[in-house]
């Protein structure tokens, strides 16, 4: 069953001079067994949504349900939500604190009160997904490289085996190689585990490459929610929202003004290549 937001509003610093409405009556659904991309400009409430999903924040209005249960109804079981909806914060490597990488990854599962054997199994499983090396496990988290620390931190949440895994900018600050690496590992994780993964990002290019469904947020709430093709239908609207669309989409948009039109919205090099080849083939009369 999905995560559903019904008319959810959230206000920061209520009753202070700095009161700020981050979300205003938004509705959205995060489906099971797929990768959902959550995209929007800074300040449109992406991170707020993430923290509403696992109950760290409570909505001022509306309801958040996970698997059909209102997560804020039962005050005693708040911890259960954290385990059900795993949340990886931005720059998660800054939260590592145990003496070894292995202990740090085991921290979450330990808090769940699992048996030693089960913890061990989960840690090894998580390490396999993120691709940490054996010798790095016994090192202090402060002694491994930045990219590896990021993986260790993500493994710490994966080891809790949450039904939903939400990651806030998992590739922020990494180089292109590290970026592709992390995101393709997450995709592999999702396909293998058949869980739900939510990736929050600024990068439309990454979204196009890795997500099954995309939710686009604007400053006024949910702008659009749908498949890649549906989202990229109107690149001008995305640009007006301050989102950067893939260069290929921009080029197609530019070409349209020159009188070249394509049958479908394009957002990957491969698809564009295919279409152009087809058009060229047609022109040749082959």
């Amino acid at each position, binding site marked *: 069953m999905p995560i559903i937001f019904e008319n959810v509003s959230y206000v920061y610093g209520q009753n202070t001079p700095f009161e700020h409405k981050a979300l205003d009556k938004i509705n959205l659904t995060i489906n099971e067994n797929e990768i959902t991309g959550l995209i929007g400009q*800074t300040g449109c409430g992406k991170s707020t949504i993430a923290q509403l999903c696992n109950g760290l924040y409570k909505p001022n209005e509306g309801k958040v349900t996970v698997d059909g249960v209102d997560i804020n109804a039962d005050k005693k079981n708040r911890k259960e939500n954290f385990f059900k909806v795993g949340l990886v914060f931005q720059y998660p490597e800054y939260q590592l604190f145990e003496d070894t990488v292995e202990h740090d990854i085991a921290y979450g599962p330990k808090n769940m009160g699992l048996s030693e054997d089960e913890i061990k199994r989960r840690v090894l499983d998580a390490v396999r997904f993120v691709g940490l090396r054996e010798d790095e496990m016994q090192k202090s988290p402060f002694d491994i490289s930045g990219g590896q620390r990021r993986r260790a931190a993500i493994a710490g949440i994966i080891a809790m085996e949450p039904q939903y895994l939400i990651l806030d900018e998992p590739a922020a600050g990494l180089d*292109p190689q590290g970026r592709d690496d992390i995101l393709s590992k997450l995709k592999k994780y999702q396909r293998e585990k058949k869980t739900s993964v939510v990736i929050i990002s600024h*990068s439309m290019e990454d979204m196009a490459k890795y997500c099954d469904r995309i939710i686009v947020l604007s400053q006024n709430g949910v702008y659009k929610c749908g498949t890649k093709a549906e989202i990229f239908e109107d690149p001008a609207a995305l640009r007006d929202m301050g989102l950067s669309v893939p260069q290929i989409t921009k*080029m197609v948009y530019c070409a349209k003004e020159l*009188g*070249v039109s394509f049958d479908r919205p394009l957002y990957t*090099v491969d698809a564009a290549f295919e279409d152009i080849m087809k058009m*060229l083939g047609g*022109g040749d009369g082959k």
Partner: protein
Amino acid sequence: MDNIIEIKDLSFSYKDSDGKLHPALHNINLNFERGTYTAILGHNGSGKSTLAKLINMVLTREDGDIDGSITVCGKEVTGDISDEDAYDIQCRIGMVHQNPDNQIVATTVEEDVAFGPENLGVDPVEIRKTVTEMLKAVGMEGHEKSAPHRLSGGQKQRIAVAGVLAMRPECIIFDESTAMLDPQGREAIMKTIDGLHKRGDVTIITITHYMNEATDADRVIVLNKGEVFMDGTPEQIFTQVETLHSVRLDVPQVTELFYKLKKAGAYDGGLPLHTEEGAAALKRLLDSKKR
């Protein structure tokens, strides 16, 4: 040719606390001409930040083994250099770092921009003029009294740029200054860099791993595993798609598309880098086939 920075046969290895050496740069030979805009590309660990830190003397002989030499503004910074000379060079080579939060010293924007000139002992009246000018140069006028922690990442980074500009450096090195910013912030910084380049009085070196941030430079240098892997104009570099892919570096999507078309025998012109060029090339290609 007037070179602001000359690097000759430079090799560098970090020394860790146990005295063990970790090679970072190997046999680098590069000259940077005054007033030019160079982008240095490479993965993490390619040595690009190490190079910047050596130029600016953040890294010295105390941090590792240096072979060869770096000469900045006519003075060799890798050899014996007096404190006074070192200070002089550091003030002439400005540096914008990665994390915007860790570059802002003062509690208000104007005082932060003034920090550099204050250190140089500039007259307050003059500083006031400089602050106004530099905030304008980065598009942050009107924020003089703002508290830095209330600004967005991109705004903070622009303040950091203004702070470096206020020292009136001859060269500015942007060390992955956009890595922690969102697309808007990144665009604003790139626009600022472009504006500085157009003014022409300052040499610009950007260090980045984003391809599309290098397409506007005069020259692109690709570092790989501590060595100069490629060196040329953006057109020369980004059209070598295979070579870049071999070190797992991206090329702009448009370039990649036309490269694929070329390989398939459907296109035989030059490879475009920019969006508009790509669209125009596409139109030409389709028109020619229609005829």
